[in-house]
């Protein structure tokens, strides 16, 4: 704790400015200290090292490797070395000349000589198709009879597929003929390159990710707020109960926490669907008519309800552990000073729960922003989140570069948030009950 009067007592260093820096035998103090403490530092580090190394290998490195895929771009360079060489100096406007097509032919022939597993034209087609529809068809269909082509090659190629006559394809080849690319990030931001190589917004009906990020963010914020709204009262209630009763109620919080996520999600399907428990109950009580059943699931409502339920314990646990440590004397002090119970709560109690709210909110927000399973099951379309899109590119469309770019952006966002939280509140307030 800082000593109160800053000005008053002269500090020791004012007394002996020089001797501070060396010990009696003349060694600089810092070095003497380091020497004396080295063994302890090593011992402490030795305890942490196994886990640190483990995580760096099994976790941090793989994520770095995955992020690398968002810029890694070997396909064009591998498949078309000669073509790229020949394309140097191409103006990017008209269809290239014979030299380029001859180089292209040479690249095709070289590729067919390679063992099948090392052939580069397949991956090239897939890569180019991300940038330009039908490019894969052009590459693969041309490949089936390219060995019959005779010089001059230009005409043969233009006959084989219309895209060879489209400067757009050549621009893509030229642009992506580098080992690193920004194209995945461009796509992840709903942008594309225009004919002059400028990055422009995509056609309106092809924009997905930015709005999906926006929605993911809004959904996560909403869910965080809801968990706070529901979590605060019960955490407070438990914190004023005697330990025994509080622990019993805590089991009510922990039980869902311990029940498989998939089961809880399924249970919500049972509860919320049109013929589900809630609708049926409402109909039988007469609140809604049989034809006015509510759409509570396979949309955003379903995602919000199920995720709020699933994440609520992550809010309650840190809140509760903070509230337990706030001594009742603060509220009493406020009342003795003349504050009404409401004022005392608002001005004195609530501000002291902020670290708990912060910890809970960050946990819930971080978890929900990366959520995947529940939205996939109950989200329908309006309840899907960015992670579903990442998973789709990982597993279905196989556009791993785009998945990595989307993932990297998500990760960076989360890390910034965590960093800010750590600065503002301190990560060591994260507690789990």
């Amino acid at each position, binding site marked *: 704790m800082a000593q109160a009067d800053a000005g008053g007592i002269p500090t020791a260093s004012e007394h002996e400015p020089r001797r501070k820096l060396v010990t009696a035998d003349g060694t600089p103090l810092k070095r003497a200290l380091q020497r004396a403490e080295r063994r302890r530092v090593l011992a402490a*580090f030795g305890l942490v090292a196994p886990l640190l190394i483990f*995580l760096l290998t099994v976790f941090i490195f793989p994520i770095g490797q995955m992020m690398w895929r968002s810029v890694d771009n070997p396909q064009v360079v591998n498949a078309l070395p000669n073509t790229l060489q020949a394309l140097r100096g191409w103006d990017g406007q008209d269809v290239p000349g014979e030299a380029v097509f001859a180089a292209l032919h040479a690249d095709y022939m070289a590729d067919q000589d390679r063992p099948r597993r090392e052939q580069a034209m397949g991956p090239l087609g897939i890569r180019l198709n991300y940038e330009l529809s039908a490019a894969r068809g052009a590459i693969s269909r041309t490949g089936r009879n390219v060995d019959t082509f005779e010089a001059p090659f230009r005409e043969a190629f233009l006959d084989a597929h219309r895209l060879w006559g489209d400067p757009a394809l050549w621009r893509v080849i030229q642009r992506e003929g580098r080992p690193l690319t920004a194209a995945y990030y461009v796509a992840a931001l709903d942008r594309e390159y225009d004919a002059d190589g400028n990055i422009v917004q995509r056609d309106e009906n092809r924009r997905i990710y930015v709005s999906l990020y926006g929605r993911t963010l809004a959904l996560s914020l909403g869910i965080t707020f809801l968990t706070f709204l529901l979590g605060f009262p019960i955490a407070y209630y438990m914190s004023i109960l005697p330990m025994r009763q509080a622990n019993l109620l805590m089991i009510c919080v922990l*039980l869902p926490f311990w029940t498989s996520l*998939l*089961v809880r999600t399924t249970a919500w399907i049972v509860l919320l669907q049109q013929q589900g428990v809630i609708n049926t109950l409402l109909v039988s009580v007469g609140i809604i008519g049989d034809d006015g059943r509510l759409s509570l699931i396979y949309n955003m409502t379903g995602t919000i309800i199920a995720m709020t339920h699933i994440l609520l314990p992550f809010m309650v646990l840190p809140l509760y552990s903070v509230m337990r440590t706030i001594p009742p004397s603060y509220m009493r002090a406020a009342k003795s000073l003349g504050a009404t119970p409401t004022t005392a709560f608002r001005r004195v109690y609530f501000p002291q729960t902020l670290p708990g709210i912060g910890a809970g909110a960050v946990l819930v927000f971080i978890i929900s922003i990366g959520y995947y399973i529940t939205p996939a099951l109950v989200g329908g379309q309006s309840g899907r989140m960015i992670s579903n899109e990442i998973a789709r590119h990982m597993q279905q469309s196989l556009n791993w570069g785009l998945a990595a770019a989307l993932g990297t952006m998500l990760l960076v966002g989360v890390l910034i948030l965590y960093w800010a939280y750590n600065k503002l509140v301190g990560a060591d307030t994260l507690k789990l009950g």
Partner: protein
Amino acid sequence: MRTLPPYATTGERIWFYTFRVICFAIFFFLLAPILIMIPLSFNAQPFFTFTREMLTLNPDGWSLRWYQDLFGSDSWMRSIRNSFLIGIAATILATTLGTLAALGLSRSQMPFKGLIMGILISPMIVPLIISAAGMFFFFSSINIAQTFTGVILAHTALGVPFVVITVTATLVGFDHSLTRAAANLGASPTRTFFKITMPLILPGVISGALFAFITSFDEIVIVLFVAGVEQRTIPREMWSGIREQISPTILAVASILVLVSIALLTTVELLRRRSERMRGLSPG
């Protein structure tokens, strides 16, 4: 707020009861899905709805069909075995590594504390889909994708933050003069650890271990990416159940697991009370 004082106004009285009603409604919200699932697991039909027969309490609407299905199914039995195998192995690894690290981190001499803490809890912060994707590629490249080793290592990584956080928190309240006292009385560091530190931080270690276990036990995203058919766990089997083949067997599994959880949580609470008594703290 625990009891109504004699000077409470009418408004305060109304709020006092309203607040309790609200709280119990929220607790009900927490429990509702679990309560609904158990009767449904006795459905005679292969769908997740209460049939008319069930609602009229017609015995034909109820059956043990899904429980028989569960215990008769090799794949379910295998997934249960796998879940426990993977969960326990990952928990042991995470708890050992995490506890050691927490001990190191709690030493005042530890350099780069903030950074290292950040790395150690990163598996909790990084969105699962990203972890899963990264591990999928990396594990494939070192030939441990679709092996038990791979899944166990992945789940160890996911469980570690919980152990580090809970044990570190326990160590904050740990009286370091006890280890000094032990050394002073002649105990070597190893002996001190096993005889003094470990028994005292055990509650924190156990709660971290439970978190690590449940993380593994309930984990699906990583399993979807990294596990092969031989490593299918309960959640993975449920995933098939929900998305690939319709079968309320998952409700039967879940009901059994809920009962196990209740038993486990109750045991933990009883243990806690016992240890408080042991330490002479009044049971509060």
